[in-house]
């Protein structure tokens, strides 16, 4: 496939890996923020081809993993109502709430649909005027423009039966939170290329300066990742701390202005809870007051949600880069993709799922 195979070329990847090996003199800890990058690293085996001394931590950039348990329980409660169709991205269906997941409530008769775009949920609302359609709008800055668009579209069509359950998060606030916590080990970040496609990279410049932190905008293919890592290592070895773009074919400094404007029109920054991590100030996006009539939380008063996390699951520490999936006593035993205890085992972007699926178990993987 054009524009993909070139970035999976063994010889090109090898050349960049050799360059990394020739550059590294000390021990460095990098974090890739995005779960899609975690999967690509593990899926291609790139994480094991890096020189010793280079430690990659997996960040909290999986929107499914960080969606608060309380929000999932809320979605489950809304989905159980007879007059409601809940629409969501496929990954969300198996994320465990306190007592089950959306797939489970579907099996007991709830109407839960997988959509590929929030606009499909708007179409559902138009086609089912006698039902309430609730779109579970999760994601980072990547999904925010389309999610915003769905609200605007519903408004334009005058739909009274469409609402969104919003759980949007933003990356820079997460980087700040990770760097501000005591005992943090991260010395450089690979920023998520697709987030920067929308947002550009100027908002990372204050972070690079404040924390003396190299931040490299990085793509998702093995060659992209190798280049991002190489750029970060060059900066670390040279004692530089800048925002650098290693994903030039998709990202510009300004990002996508139309998409950013869409986000700003519908959403505003707010505090939010990150599952497993806690509340991070101004790290989320909520509906602006003029759109609260599309807010599913306002529309469906759900009481008596008693959310309780698994006592064993260490997803929070994994999401903050303090631990790796194999450090968890339940990993691969009590917790597997078929019986997940936490969201990091469910999502196709979750670090635990990546480790499990691609055999990063004790002694496995040759």
């Amino acid at each position, binding site marked *: *496939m054009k524009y*993909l195979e070139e970035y*999976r*070329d*063994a010889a090109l*990847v*090898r050349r960049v890996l050799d360059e990394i090996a020739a550059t590294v003199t000390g021990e460095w800890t990098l974090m890739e923020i995005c779960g*899609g990058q975690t999967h690509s690293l*593990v*899926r*291609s*085996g*790139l994480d*094991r*081809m890096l020189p010793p001394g280079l430690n990659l931590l997996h960040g909290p950039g999986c*929107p*499914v993993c960080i969606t608060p348990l309380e929000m999932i329980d809320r979605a489950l409660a809304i989905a159980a109502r007879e007059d409601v169709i809940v629409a969501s*991205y*496929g*990954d*969300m*269906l*198996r994320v465990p709430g306190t007592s089950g997941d959306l*797939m489970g409530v579907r099996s007991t008769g709830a109407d839960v649909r*997988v959509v*590929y*775009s929030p606009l*499909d949920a708007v179409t559902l609302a138009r086609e089912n005027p006698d039902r309430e359609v609730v779109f579970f709008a*999760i*994601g*980072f800055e*990547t*999904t925010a423009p389309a999610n915003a668009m769905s609200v605007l579209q519903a408004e334009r069509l005058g739909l009274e039966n469409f609402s969104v359950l919003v759980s949007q998060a933003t990356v820079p606030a997460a980087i700040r939170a990770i760097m501000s916590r005591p005992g943090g080990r991260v010395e450089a970040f690979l920023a998520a290329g*697709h987030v920067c496609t929308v947002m550009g990279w100027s908002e990372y410049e204050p972070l690079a300066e404040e924390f003396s932190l190299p931040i490299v905008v990085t793509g998702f293919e*093995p*060659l992209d990742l190798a280049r991002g890592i190489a750029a970060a290592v060059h900066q670390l070895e040279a004692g530089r701390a800048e925002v650098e773009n290693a994903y030039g074919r998709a990202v510009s400094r300004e990002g996508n202005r139309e998409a950013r404007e869409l986000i700003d029109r519908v959403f505003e920054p707010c505090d939010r809870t990150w599952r497993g991590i806690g509340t991070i100030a101004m790290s989320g996006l909520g509906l602006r007051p003029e759109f609260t009539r599309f807010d599913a939380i306002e529309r469906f008063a759900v009481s008596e949600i008693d959310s309780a996390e698994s006592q064993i699951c260490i997803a929070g520490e994994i999401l903050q880069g303090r631990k790796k999936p194999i450090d968890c006593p339940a990993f691969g035993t009590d917790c*597997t*993709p*078929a019986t997940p205890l936490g969201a990091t085992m469910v*999502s*196709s*972007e979750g670090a635990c799922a990546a480790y*499990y*699926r*691609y*055999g*990063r*178990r004790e*002694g*496995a*993987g*040759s």
Partner: protein
Amino acid sequence: MNGTDPTLPDCPLPHSHRGRIILGHGSGGLLTGELIEHLFRPAFANPLLERGDDAAVADLPGELAAGGRLAISTDAHIVQPLEFPGGDIGRLAVCGTVNDLAMVGARPLWLTATFVIEEGFATARLERLVASMQAAAEEAGVAIVAGDTKVTGRGLADGVYISTAGIGVVPPDCETGGALAEPGDLVLCSGTLGDHGIAVLAARGELAFETAIASDIAPLNGLVETIYETGAAVHTLRDPTRGGAAAALCEIARQSGVAIILEEAALPVRPAVAGACEMLGFDPLHVANEGKLLALVPEAEAPAVLAAMRAHSLGHEAALIGRVEAEPPGRVVLETTIGGTRIVDMPAGELLPRIC
């Protein structure tokens, strides 16, 4: 066809039933007889079915006397939509059981077919599916010799479910099974992976884009015969249906206690299937096939088998995709295009498209 079910009430015969299956068609009465006489019997016409008794009675195949063994298999089929590019539930029902028999080296002989039909199903559509079954049976050289029909109330079944069972005969000298793979074997794949799964997904309208992918459904017993004609000692055959090649190979690795090492760059995947998988976050190794087989054969015999597969109409795109080693036992390891390695595991459940 024996369609008697005393628990179902005898339906009156409303004039409006023409063109639709009604509960009475499963009652065992006149309507059942009509369905058998006018639809099933003419379509599946063969001497064993012709007798119209409660069971088909067949002569023992000659191979049995010479030390051959019987192979028996059964398979239920549900799929939505019932018809999709490249096939339909009828063709699927025949090929599913024929292929299960072929994978143990058997020559499939007879099938039975059970239809569970939802009230209101269009008779013309049933006719189409039955004709498709017969066409597939003729391709495979098998006869559908017995069957049954039940009709459920509206809303209690998804159009039609078809279950088939089959009997085949394994030649005396044939030893093929999932536990017989050995270090030193090579892994051959008869063609492109993932066509069926993506074709059905696209036909459901669940892809946000159009694809021209057709399902690969086909009876594989002819291809298997071609493989055996090379004289090779075929250790293992498997058709990678649900769960895809990953599930099939994981099973073989566990059954045989061996490691299977795959080469990512050698996996045959159509660009359109690879593209759909990229967009949805699927692994082509996890996507279903219905007309492909994996053959594990000793290295020395692999070139002849591969050449024979490629000369067959169902194996033009056959490829050598991996090898069997001793370590790590029970594992499937993929050597990635960039030179890394990773474990290939069974898919966890339903394939779910990713968020971004």
